[in-house]
């Protein structure tokens, strides 16, 4: 691997990281609108409002960057970066295509990915604590509680795949993948995807950022670009969680003509899962904080444990 190759890969990663979340954001604008019988943005950019998010970005950049007087200045200003950058790092280890179609193949890729994903949530905690605002503090507390509850089933579900493949490397897992893993790991996939939704605070698990009760929680005091970075982190998170679910449970680049079109399959599966994320947001009302906890501990954790047991049994029977 020479320098040019590395630069090329990093550039591709950066472009994907900047473009894909915006695509998901635009998709959310449009899908949500049409699911509610509306048209959504129609003016920005001329054709069906394709440049709406660019216009939003320009607007956010023009706004004043306010830091509350009583806020913990450094932590407050650092929080958006802490929320956004982990998702960029996660994408480094996500395989897109077979035969080295990954920016950097890591031996402990799954471990790395899950560890870094957890850091992203810290941004919300930092923002919630440093804002010196009651609503932000409430949002931060709810975020922390949700992180505690959903990190466990997520790890268990991912562990099940690692057990099945016998490796922690993401390209390694995909190399082992067979089509019958799909029904075998389906419960784990459900647990992983739902727990991922909860970690991103996506509806129906958006109690930590409930705009109508605690005014966007940890983000109450943020303005301008820093607020935009938090929003971007949310959409980058959708891309990352969808991509990880696709890679771990839906076979990533596996599909017809995988040798040439593997990256298309990865992107397609990620896009479909992103659509599901938006679909769930439109369809379901927000769960209460206690309902979110109950769902995690009484439904997701037992399901994930059952999946691990099933994986272990099948693994032993096959060997």
């Amino acid at each position, binding site marked *: 691997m020479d320098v040019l190759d590395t630069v090329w890969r990093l550039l591709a990663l950066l472009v994907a990281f900047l473009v894909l979340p915006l695509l998901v954001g635009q998709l959310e604008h449009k899908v949500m609108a049409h*699911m509610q*019988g509306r048209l959504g943005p129609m003016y920005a950019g001329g054709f069906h409002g394709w440049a709406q998010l660019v216009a939003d970005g320009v607007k956010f950049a023009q706004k004043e960057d306010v830091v509350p007087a009583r806020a913990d200045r450094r932590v407050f200003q650092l929080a958006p970066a802490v929320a956004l950058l982990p998702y960029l790092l996660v994408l480094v280890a996500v395989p897109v295509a077979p035969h080295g179609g990954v920016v950097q193949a890591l031996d402990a890729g799954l471990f790395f990915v899950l560890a870094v994903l957890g850091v992203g949530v810290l941004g919300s905690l930092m923002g919630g604590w440093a804002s010196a605002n009651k609503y932000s503090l409430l949002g931060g507390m709810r975020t922390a509680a949700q992180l505690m509850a959903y990190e466990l089933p997520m790890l268990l579900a991912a562990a099940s795949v690692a057990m099945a493949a016998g490796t922690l490397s993401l390209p390694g897992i995909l190399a082992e993948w067979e089509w019958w893993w799909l029904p075998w790991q389906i419960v784990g996939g459900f647990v992983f995807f739902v727990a991922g939704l909860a970690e991103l605070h996506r509806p129906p698990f958006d109690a930590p950022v409930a705009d109508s009760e605690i005014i966007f929680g940890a983000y109450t005091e943020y303005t301008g670009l820093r607020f935009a970075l938090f929003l971007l982190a949310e959409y980058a998170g959708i891309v990352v969680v969808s991509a990880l679910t696709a890679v771990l449970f839906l076979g990533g680049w596996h599909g017809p003509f995988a040798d040439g079109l593997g990256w298309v399959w990865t992107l397609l599966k990620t896009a479909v899962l992103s659509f599901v994320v938006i*679909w*769930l947001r439109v369809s379901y009302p927000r769960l209460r904080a206690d309902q979110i906890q109950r769902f995690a501990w009484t439904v997701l954790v037992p399901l994930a444990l059952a999946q691990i047991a099933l994986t272990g049994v099948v693994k032993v029977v096959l060997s």
Partner: protein
Amino acid sequence: MSLPGSGLAKGLAVTLRTMTRRTVTAQYPDVQPELPPRSRGVIALFEENCTVCMLCARECPDWCIYIDSHKETTPPATPGGRERSHNVLDRFAIDFALCMYCGICIEVCPFDALFWSPEFEYAETDIRDLTHERDKLREWMWTVPEPPALDPAAEEPKELATAQKAAEKAAQKAAEGAQDAGPQAPDDRAEGDGA
């Protein structure tokens, strides 16, 4: 008892079905709305019919109609007759900043001088420009649509019946003048129909 989670699936189905249907958004500035008949946009004045009876101004709940007039006398039509006086309209203005579009002035006008027009795009940047004076109100008259057609089973409008009766009476008189004697059976029947 239905399957657990069937409600969740139903919710997803509803949103997905809505996504495939046509949207209901009205793209107003680009596409003009299709207004229903009898839309209340602006009030038009047919000043030729106005007799300055002031009923509209007095019935207006928020007093947004301003009328000024003076009296003029016309000389007697026949020598030795009496002079006639009538009102001449000097100012007729409606302040649409105050108007609440109740339509009482139009209902109450006994001479059909006020009409609803469906035009609604007359927003102004200065509130004083919302007081439409007589010439502007007269201009709106050109935008008043034809009255909607009557229902097929509706009874004949009174105006029509009155005019018909008058015409018949004139015709009868003419006929009587032409032939003094003889029964007037066909005329009687025609009168029975009109009643």
